[in-house]
């Protein structure tokens, strides 16, 4: 155990002392908010600066409603299509919409002439505009009172309650999924980033040829576990720093600049308003109903379990090869289940209790990601227990398997390794 700790300590210190660690640790909490903030500001500016586009309308039917929208202003033109086209070409305007004299029962022949390829949202909004013109026309023809029609529209809000755990809990699919997706994605990223670091570390030890001296003093298994756990503690340490830094940053920024920022005032106004509005009340209620403790505990469990499972596989791959480029062929089978877990998320959002969701969250290779996607929706206790037990068995299994490959692999240089060779190493006695 002492030796394992020594190895762990070295792995931890040698990574934490690196300049790149300091850089990412400090920059990530600064860059990400800055990046997102910048994007939001840019998008807002673009929205504000977006001018109304002028579209010429050559309406042969006389049924088109030329009332301008937020983005487009419609200008009626007369004459035949050819003159309208040439007039449009000479102008600076965005497009020319040609509306033939159509039959409202089977409307067709509408054409938009533009100087560039109009994007999807443009086409969509002009289609909507034409469709609503036709609808108004139909209302007139069928003699339906528009006011009556508006009154037919009803909006209700379905409140969904989860009663599976004894007490009634209000649930919200969006919030549950959001939390699940973010935590699942974090696990996915962490496994790739830090699993890759484990592999790099093993390859480095092998290629610098220090490994033989080390294994004459510690068991290969201790060396492997020391490395895996050392990298894991670097990851946890980094995440903790990020949380603390971002928290401090947020408090400082809002505290120091808060008074000068107009948004701050607006925000508190909004909060006051929210207290009175039923929708905001619902949001507050939902927020309070999210089982944070449960989610955090599950996250930590799957985070560690999944990392151990994949970290040991990455270590085994690292031990089998001499350079990182050789590792590619073995990376593929490791990546597939990870990617399956992330892709499966879309199935989980639609049907958290479905077959796909169930199996993805039970099988240890995908469960760390998939179970995080499901956890917010409420998972039956036995399924959660089964998944956790299987994950524990899973990582014991992969650590054992990886250990057997690792102990042989680290002493092999210049061997051409394929799966058959790996199997041979695995079967090798002692």
């Amino acid at each position, binding site marked *: 155990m002492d*030796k394992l700790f*020594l190895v762990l300590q*070295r792995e931890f210190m*040698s990574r934490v002392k*690196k300049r790149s660690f300091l850089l990412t640790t400090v920059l990530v909490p600064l860059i990400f908010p800055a990046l997102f903030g910048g994007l939001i500001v840019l998008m807002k500016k673009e929205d504000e600066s977006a001018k109304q586009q002028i579209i010429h309308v050559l309406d042969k039917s006389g049924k088109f409603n030329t009332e301008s929208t937020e983005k487009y202003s419609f200008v009626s033109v007369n004459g035949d299509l050819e003159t309208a086209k040439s007039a449009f070409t000479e102008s600076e305007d965005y497009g020319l919409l040609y509306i033939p004299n159509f039959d409202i029962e089977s409307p067709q022949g509408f054409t938009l002439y533009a100087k560039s390829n109009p994007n999807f949202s443009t086409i969509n909004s002009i289609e909507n505009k034409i469709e609503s013109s036709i609808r108004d026309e139909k209302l007139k023809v069928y003699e339906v009172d528009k006011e009556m029609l508006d009154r037919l529209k009803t909006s209700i809000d379905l409140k969904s309650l989860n009663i599976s755990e004894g007490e009634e809990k209000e649930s919200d699919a969006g919030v549950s999924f959001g939390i699940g997706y973010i935590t699942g994605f974090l696990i996915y990223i962490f496994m790739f980033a830090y699993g890759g670091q484990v592999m790099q570390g093993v390859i*480095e*030890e092998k290629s*610098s*040829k*220090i490994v*033989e*001296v*080390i*294994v*004459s*003093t*510690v068991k290969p298994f201790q060396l492997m576990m020391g490395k895996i756990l050392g990298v894991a503690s670097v990851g946890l340490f980094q995440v903790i720093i990020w949380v603390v830094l971002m928290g401090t940053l947020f408090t400082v920024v809002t505290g120091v600049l808060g008074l000068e920022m107009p948004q701050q005032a607006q925000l508190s106004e909004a909060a006051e308003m929210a207290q009175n509005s039923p929708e905001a009340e619902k949001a507050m209620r939902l927020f309070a109903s999210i089982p944070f403790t449960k989610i955090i505990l599950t996250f930590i469990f799957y985070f560690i379990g999944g990392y151990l499972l994949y970290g040991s596989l990455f270590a085994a791959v690292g031990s089998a090869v001499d350079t990182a480029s050789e590792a590619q062929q073995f990376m593929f089978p490791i990546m597939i289940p990870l990617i399956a877990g992330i892709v499966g998320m879309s199935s989980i959002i639609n049907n958290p209790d479905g077959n796909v969701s169930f199996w993805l969250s039970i099988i240890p290779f995908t469960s760390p990601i998939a179970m995080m996607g499901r956890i917010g929706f409420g998972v039956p206790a036995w399924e959660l227990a089964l998944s956790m037990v299987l994950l524990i068995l899973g990582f014991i299994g992969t650590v054992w398997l990886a250990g057997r490959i690792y102990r042989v692999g680290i*002493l092999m*240089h210049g061997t051409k390794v394929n799966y058959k060779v790996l199997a041979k190493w695995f079967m090798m*006695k*002692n």
Partner: protein
Amino acid sequence: MDNVDISIPEGSIYGLLGPNGAGKTTFIRIINQIINTDEGEVRINGDLLNADHISMIGYLPEERGLYKKMKVGEQLVYLGQLRNLPRKEAIKRSKAWCERLGIYEWWNKKIEDLSKGMAQKIQFISTILNEPKLIILDEPFSGFDPVNANLIKDEILELREKGSTIIFSTHRMESVEELCDHIALINNSKKILEGTKKAIKDSYRSNTFLVDHKGAVNGSLSNDFEVLGHEVLEDEMHKSIIQIKNGKLSPNDLLQNLISTTEVHSFIEKVPSINEIFISKVEGGNNG
């Protein structure tokens, strides 16, 4: 390894010889507990090999290296701690050794900033930092520059003086000739020769002598002696290889016989070098 039975006397420098692929490194890895034996056992001072022995062994493998990104001091202390040295003691000894080998000013430098020769010194220090009772050196002179090779040679001899036992694996015979007092020859996973250097060499004596002389020997030698080789040098000098055929005769008899016909300038027994024994044994083994 196939039925290899070797006993290494305490305080000796033991040469483990054999061509590449003979099984030397496997043998060494077994002693270092890197791999286990399928059958058979290793005993140190009568005790079966166990984890406690790690702290009394120093190992310099053939494939050797250091963590490139680690600082010299950190690295030595870490490797010392892995050999069960307490941290403080590891620091103290590392510093003392670095001063002794003139690399103390590099204590806080990363290995990647060091020259190859300096890195080799550090590898050597890390091998002997725990004052091991048993030092295992696998091809210690390959890759070392001559200055470092000499330095290591001197340190090895000094460690032996202090009571350490040294196992020295190599396929380079000239270093064996100089350092080892015991030898085992391994080929194709089998031990084919073992004993003290002197005993082995004696057993390969063939009563043959190398003689430098002025004036030809011609046919004046008695039938008890046979000229195996002969070479004419400048200024009437000759070099002859002469074997005593009659087992009852001594070198003095040969010398007397020679003096009566020619002027002897030097007279040396032709003892086979370890290299010659090695080659004859290995080739003989492979052919048979």
